[in-house]
């Protein structure tokens, strides 16, 4: 692990440029946020393969769908909150219904559009996207995984949703084996409890697990980058071993990673669970770190919630 911080959106912009020569059928569409979402450099270098459709997300998604039926590999880029809400009809009825190979790049995911406030923060995109049949849902934890997810999605047949964080976050997996869609990445082995995490909070979960070791608690730490299709086998094996599962996500706890894990375990290995995420409420403006902390996504909270799960009052 290195201490370097990289913004996933920057890694996204660089990956588009790097992949462009090898994947000539790749095209990029953006809805007037190309400088923010970092598709602009691709657009400047590959003018004929870039389509800025203006502030019209629904239209953008269906244009991409039409292109995909004709052999192109479109990557659709805008803020995750708009992609999942304004584009829900197009994602469901055109892209997913027809299994079209469109990549949905949901930028400014989670609370990362922090200062713009609740209207721009995307805390229910995972819930919406994972309800879509045929859609693969990936939540990378760093810029390395983001690029790997993009490369893997370009090789897949159906549509893929990839959540992208706006802000610099620790690079975790520069030297690790590449992300494999549909597979959990096991970060630590332990026997007292399972911590299942996705996205930006992954670095927090790693730190919390280290602290727990100091308290004599060993955690099975699973990074669940693919929310759908979820790696049920690995989750069930871990839950049977530890008997207690804590989920951590930068998303509402209604319908996200915690819900996905609970759907598996409640049917195959009923396990005592606790979920860290945003409660059923709207968030607010503020610094990214301050927001994550206020809404319960922090190293301290993971540590204390793990202890509470082990020692219920």
């Amino acid at each position: 692990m290195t201490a370097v911080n990289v913004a996933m959106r920057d890694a996204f912009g660089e990956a588009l440029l790097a992949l462009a020569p090898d994947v000539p059928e790749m095209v990029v569409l953006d809805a007037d946020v190309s400088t923010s979402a970092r598709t602009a450099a691709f657009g400047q270098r590959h003018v004929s393969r870039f389509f800025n459709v203006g502030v019209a997300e629904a239209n953008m998604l269906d244009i991409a769908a039409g292109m995909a039926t004709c052999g192109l590999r479109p990557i659709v880029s805008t803020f995750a909150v708009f992609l999942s809400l304004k584009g829900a009809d197009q994602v469901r009825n055109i892209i997913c219904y027809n299994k079209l190979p469109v990549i949905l790049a949901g930028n400014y995911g989670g609370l990362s559009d922090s200062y713009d406030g609740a209207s721009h923060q995307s805390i229910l995109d995972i819930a919406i996207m994972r309800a879509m049949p045929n859609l693969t849902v990936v939540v990378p934890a760093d810029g390395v995984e983001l690029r790997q997810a993009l490369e893997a999605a370009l090789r897949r047949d159906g549509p893929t949703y990839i959540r992208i964080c706006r802000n610099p976050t620790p690079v975790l997996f520069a030297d690790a084996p590449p992300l494999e869609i549909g597979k959990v990445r096991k970060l630590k082995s332990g026997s007292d409890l399972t911590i299942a995490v996705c996205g930006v909070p992954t670095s927090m979960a790693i730190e919390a697990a280290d602290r727990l070791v100091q308290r004599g608690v060993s955690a099975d730490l699973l990074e669940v980058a693919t929310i759908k299709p979820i790696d049920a086998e690995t989750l069930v094996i871990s839950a049977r071993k530890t008997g207690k599962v804590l989920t951590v996500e930068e998303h509402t706890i209604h319908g996200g990673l915690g819900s996905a894990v609970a759907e598996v375990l409640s049917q195959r290995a009923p396990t005592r669970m606790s979920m860290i995420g945003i409660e059923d409420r709207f968030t607010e403006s503020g610094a990214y770190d301050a927001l994550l902390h206020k809404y319960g996504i922090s190293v301290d909270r993971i540590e204390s919630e793990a202890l509470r799960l082990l020692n219920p009052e």
Partner: protein
Amino acid sequence: MQANTHREPRAVLQEKDRKKKAAMLQVLAQEFRLTVLDILHENGTGHWGGAASAAELLVALYFHAMNVRPEEPGWPLRDRLVVSKGHASCMLYTVLAHRGYFAPAELKTFRQIDSRLQGHPCMLKTPGVDMSTGPLGHGTSVALGMALAARLLEKSYWTYVLLGDGDLNEGQTWEAIMAAAKFKPERLVALIDYNKVQLDGPSEQIMPMDPLPEKLRAFNWNVAPAVYDGHSIVEVLKSFDWVKGQRQWPAAVIYKTHKGQGVSFMEDNAQWHGAVIDDATYTKARQELLQTLQKLEELV
């Protein structure tokens, strides 16, 4: 009562005499109306109004304008059609079946369990369907994407989108209309089945779209100078001649049509958008359609 024994529909493809071909296509459209009426009555479900409205347009597209290979539905160089008014599905399926995409006998499975012929078109199930539609407003965007792909991949296929009044209500249609005028893809053509009746009633009461040609021109589309009679094959072929002669894109043609065309008491009547056709109505409607068909056959 599945009565229609169509003449060999594909014979019309070989017809070189334009006048005769138009008369044959006119008969075909009317025969397909009868088939659709039979299916909707027999199965007790489906949309008559919008299907009858689009009969001549769909027939003229698949039996005259479009370069397709029914034996190879996914042929990459084929012309594309996005039927944005997906509730015309029964007419689309009838046209596709008789064009050779699948056996006409399959039409009776329309909307039934395990059928390839879904209530609204599904491109993964029905050979010949280029895009799944049904929820209104998607078609123009999808067609724009197909036309842009043609440009990028240096292919010369045509992309048509068939729109109805309901489609024009949808905000996304106007997003696509703006974007198409920005990108100007070659050979993108919107055909507007402008019957001015939607599900709930006359468009004038639900959502007036006039002045439509002026609106489209203001959005920088190349709009045909005339509004054509969408139930006259001669007129529809004329409109296609105009389309093929254009160099400015995107292009749009507006057709004056009648919802429920062919049955006097169903025409322009929102009640027959999607109502079940009962036995008494069916008998009366069928008689009218047959009378017209006989007259049209005499003209061939």
